[in-house]
């Protein structure tokens, strides 16, 4: 491709971006002649250059678009239709340009007749309108003139005309009369074309233009500065800059080394010159960094257009305000945030802003506003996307979090709203009820978060119901140089990026800042919070936890996303600006490090990746009770709750001296009620709990609550209903395997297990729940499985999963639990073999029916016994189940029936196999 063409492509693409922005602006202020002229000029330039370079297709489109815009300038009213069409033409031009670039300078085949016809049609109809409404036009012109005068006054008032200068009015008139556009001096070929018509007026106009164009600029908002700068800038290949940057980085490293050497020799004659070298290097580094800096506005250029299109598509008026477009940041970073930003704007427009009617009803202006702002803050750039829409829907997020199993109801109860909002950054999490063409597919905010975190940034959000929400992105100015804290652990030094370091705490065994342990896991009381700790050496697999020196050392308090934790190190040295070098490909799989670098003393140091540490912390946590969001995502396939893993059990006494146990995950909360609060109604005990009545249930029929003082109880909740199980005393919470060794015949007891070396009755919650509400199981589905053989048990409700697993285990089955048909299918695909499947019917995404049908179609699972569980058992549903291929269809509350059915199908299966 020749240079001329390349130049043309770059320049035209830039011009087109400007045209995009200007057109949208113009649509809003159709009477602003400055904007129109600007657009006109740009399109004209493109047209002219295309003609010159022999690109007929581009020229034809540009010409037709120009003609239509010429009508606007003649006073024809601006319509949405027309603007849309012009925008479409711009898009077409862009497409052709892209092809042009790919095809090395040959225009692609094809015709644009459709577009051109349409443009011409509009031009002609505009003409007709013109003719028929001469009067109106005249008036419009008058109005326009008034308007112009209005703007002129504003401009002229800035300073009086100097002798020899022409007033803007005159200038404007000269342009009009000359029927000639203001031309970029660069586009000379046009002059020929127009010269005949122009005549002397051109000369006059040009002469005056030279003087006056500048003073005119201040009035012409935004576009002018770029014009001014263009003469003083040159285009430099990005590679050249990258290379320069690398060289400077090397220079900085070498300088650091030299400084280190000189530091060791007290009075070296090198000291002074080296100091100068150091300063110059610093400045050079800064200078080169600057060349990589670009105003963030470059990443925003396409947004007004996107918002305009969205506004039409969604049929709601949307305004976009952009503040701080001149804020500069590294171009590498800029590239990386473009897409996330676009996505967030789309999100705000689609979900954030309400429908116009809704807005009006809420007392807000019909037009929704999205504000995009950027500013510097201590080495970072903060970008905020704010809308004045409805805000995030807390309830919906909670609902979704429960449904996706990323949190339990109990956890949600404890969380602050802020924390709950953050769930929207989890994968597959979209609360939009409707999937629109714009967004709502559930791949969104997590991608945004990943992209932002990838470049060492963080994302936060604030939201007020009914008032709007705002997303705040914090990103480093540059990726090439990172400020780090140098620490030591296990005899090695490591660099931790400052961005994620919140504070340093010195460990002292005799003060508040001492390390305490919870189940062997170190924690620190830090002000009002309990901070989980991990020793750096342990993270890096170098020592055992046991060797930790508790009396000395420092805790580096880090924050990654919403996660806070402390990393214990042996020593802290200083902070150092380092140039990140990528890890060797042999070591790149270690996710604890993000790179390495050479320090001032010439040694290599590893750079800790805060995200790697955070996910390591998360995986520690998942070893205990509940999966974290992160984990949920990582272990999509191992979604299986290992029934043999230790689980948390709540030990209590009720009715008798023997300890009883119930899985802690089932208990919503522990409460104590004043016995006076217990009321009796309709033959049963109730308490008022959270605004509704909660029935109380006793472990043994005929038990009574205490007669005075407070009564402890375990509260079980599901779907807004609660039941209180009255107990005598809550003993402890332990973590142990729940191997039921003696199966109980007694109702309400699953059996006995050894817990804490004592025989303990494991309570069958399934027996007690219906005592509180007969229809408990009607509302949700249960799952069960049986005998020594492996069962796959699928239910989307964590509550019932937790509850039925012990029941099935007690019946002697080896149970594998999945929360969705997909994950169950995934396990089977991987070759995990099951003797039978028990599946819930009503599940989101893939229902039990669909799941069964697809299994039956697969020859491998053709004979697999599959049992359906459902709250609804009608002849029709049973028939439907049979058609889907279920071997049996069991009601959820019919647990004996389920066990019998399992036994049945498994015996049958044996028969078939034999």
């Amino acid at each position, binding site marked *: 491709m020749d240079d001329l063409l390349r130049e043309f492509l770059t320049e035209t693409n830039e011009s087109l971006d400007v045209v995009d922005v200007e057109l949208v602006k113009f649509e809003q202020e159709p009477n602003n002649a400055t904007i129109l002229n600007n657009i006109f000029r740009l399109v004209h330039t493109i047209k002219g250059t295309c003609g010159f370079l022999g690109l007929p297709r581009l020229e034809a489109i540009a010409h037709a678009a120009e003609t239509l815009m010429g009508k606007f300038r003649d006073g024809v009213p601006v319509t949405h239709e027309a603007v849309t069409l012009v925008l479409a033409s711009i898009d077409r031009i862009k497409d052709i340009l892209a092809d042009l670039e790919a095809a090395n300078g040959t225009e692609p085949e094809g015709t644009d007749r459709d577009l051109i016809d349409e443009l011409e049609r509009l031009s002609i109809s505009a003409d007709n309108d013109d003719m028929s409404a001469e009067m109106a036009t005249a008036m419009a012109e008058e109005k326009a003139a008034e308007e112009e005068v209005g703007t002129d006054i504003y401009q002229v008032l800035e300073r009086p005309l100097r002798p020899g200068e022409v007033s803007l009015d005159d200038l404007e008139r000269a342009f009009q009369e000359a029927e000639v556009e203001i031309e970029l001096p660069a586009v000379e070929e046009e002059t020929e074309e127009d010269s005949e018509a122009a005549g002397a007026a051109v000369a006059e106009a040009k002469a005056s233009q030279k003087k006056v164009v500048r003073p005119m600029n201040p009035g012409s908002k935004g576009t002018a500065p770029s014009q001014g700068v263009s003469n003083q800038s040159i285009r430099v290949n990005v590679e050249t800059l990258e290379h320069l940057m690398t060289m400077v980085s090397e220079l900085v490293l070498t300088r650091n080394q030299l400084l280190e050497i000189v530091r060791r020799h007290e009075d070296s004659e090198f000291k002074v010159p080296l100091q100068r070298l150091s300063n110059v290097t610093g400045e050079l580094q800064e200078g080169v960094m600057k060349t990589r800096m670009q105003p963030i506005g470059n990443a925003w250029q396409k947004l007004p257009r996107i918002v305009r299109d969205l506004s039409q598509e969604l049929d709601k008026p949307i305004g976009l305000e952009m503040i701080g477009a001149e804020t500069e940041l590294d171009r590498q970073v800029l590239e990386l945030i473009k897409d996330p930003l676009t996505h967030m704007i789309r999100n705000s427009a689609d979900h954030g802003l309400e429908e116009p009617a809704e807005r009006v009803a809420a007392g807000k202006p019909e037009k929704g506003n999205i504000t995009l702002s950027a500013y510097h803050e201590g080495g970072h750039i903060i970008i905020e996307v704010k809308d004045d829409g409805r805000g995030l829907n807390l309830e919906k997020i909670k609902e979704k979090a429960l449904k996706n199993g990323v949190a339990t109801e109990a956890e949600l109860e404890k969380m602050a709203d802020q924390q709950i909002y953050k769930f929207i950054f989890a994968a597959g999490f979209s609360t939009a009820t409707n999937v629109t063409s714009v967004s709502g597919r559930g791949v969104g905010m997590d991608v945004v978060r990943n992209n932002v975190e990838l470049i060492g940034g963080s994302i936060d959000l604030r939201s007020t119901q009914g008032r709007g929400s705002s997303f705040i992105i914090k990103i480093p100015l540059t990726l090439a140089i990172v400020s780090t804290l140098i620490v030591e652990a296990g005899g090695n030094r490591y660099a931790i990026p400052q961005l994620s370091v919140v504070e340093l705490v010195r460990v002292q065994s005799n003060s508040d800042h001492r390390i305490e342990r919870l189940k062997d896991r170190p924690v620190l009381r830090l002000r009002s919070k309990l901070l989980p700790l991990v020793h750096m050496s342990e993270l890096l*697999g170098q020592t055992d936890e046991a060797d930790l020196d508790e009396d000395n050392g420092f805790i580096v308090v880090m924050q990654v996303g919403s996660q806070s934790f402390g990393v214990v190190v042996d020593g802290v040295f200083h902070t150092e600006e380092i140039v990140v070098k990528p890890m060797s490909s*042999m070591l790149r799989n270690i996710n604890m490090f993000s790179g390495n670098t050479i320090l001032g003393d*010439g040694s290599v140091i590893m750079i800790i990746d805060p995200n790697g540490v955070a996910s390591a912390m998360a995986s520690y946590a998942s070893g205990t009770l509940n999966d974290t969001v992160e984990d949920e995502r990582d272990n999509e396939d191992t979604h299986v709750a290992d029934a043999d893993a230790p689980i948390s059990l709540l030990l209590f006494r009720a009715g008798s001296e023997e300890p009883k146990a119930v899985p802690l995950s089932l208990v919503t909360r522990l409460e104590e009620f004043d016995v006076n609060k217990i009321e009796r109604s309709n033959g049963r005990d109730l308490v008022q709990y959270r605004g509704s009545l909660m029935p109380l249930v006793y472990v043994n029929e005929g038990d009574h609550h205490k007669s005075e003082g407070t009564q402890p109880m375990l509260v079980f909740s599901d779907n807004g209903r609660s039941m209180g199980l009255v107990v005598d005393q809550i003993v402890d919470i332990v973590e142990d395997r729940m191997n039921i060794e003696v199966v109980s015949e007694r109702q309400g007891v699953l059996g006995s297990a050894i817990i804490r070396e004592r025989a303990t009755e494991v309570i069958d919650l399934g027996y007690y729940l219906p005592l509180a509400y007969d229809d408990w199981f009607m509302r949700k589905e249960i799952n069960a499985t049986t005998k020594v053989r492996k069962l796959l048990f699928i239910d989307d409700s964590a509550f019932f999963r937790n509850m039925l697993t012990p029941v099935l285990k007690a019946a002697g089955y080896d149970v594998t639990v999945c929360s969705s048909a997909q994950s169950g299918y995934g396990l089977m695909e991987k070759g995990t073999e099951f003797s039978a499947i028990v599946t819930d019917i009503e599940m989101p995404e893939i229902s039990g029916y669909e799941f069964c049908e697809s299994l039956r179609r697969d020859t491998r699972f053709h004979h697999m016994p599959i049992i359906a569980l459902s709250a609804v058992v009608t002849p029709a549903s049973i028939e439907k189940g049979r058609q889907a291929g279920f071997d049996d269809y069991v009601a959820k509350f019919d647990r004996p029936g389920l066990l019998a059915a399992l036994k049945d199908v498994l015996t049958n299966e044996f028969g078939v196999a034999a």
Partner: protein
Amino acid sequence: MTAHRITSVDSDDNRQGSADHIQYVTVVIGNQLFGLPISQVHDVFVPEKVTQVPLAPPEVAGVLNLRGRIVTAINMRRKLHLKPNDVDQGMMAVGIEYKGESYGLVIDAVGEVLNLPRKEMEANPSNLDFRWAEISGGVHRLEGQLMVVLDVDRLLSSLIEPKAA
């Protein structure tokens, strides 16, 4: 840090028949002589200030700074499943470029440069330890001893690829 450019070691006599001869830099690892094709050897240096990399594969001795480049040092004794070096014995490293990255093979000592006829190289004996066979390109029978030809590409890719998967 001491380093010699190997290219300057070449003697004129050895320049001849490059088509049927290959020049090898010989190195000693645990009393065994190995040969590295000279075209792949960048330099020879004494590894100093090696930074350990936790969680790295056991063969990786660490990373070090060689004239402003970060070099990954590979402990050849460990790679070949030999006993670790005696502490005080000197160490040398052979610098190698592989796919745009720098590696240093840590060995016991560097020998000389040999010009050996291509056709004299024999295939690995079938009873060669499979961990050696994996990275050996063949064997040369020299006077008094055998020289195992190290296949640098196989050696490094065996260390990189299993992780990439």
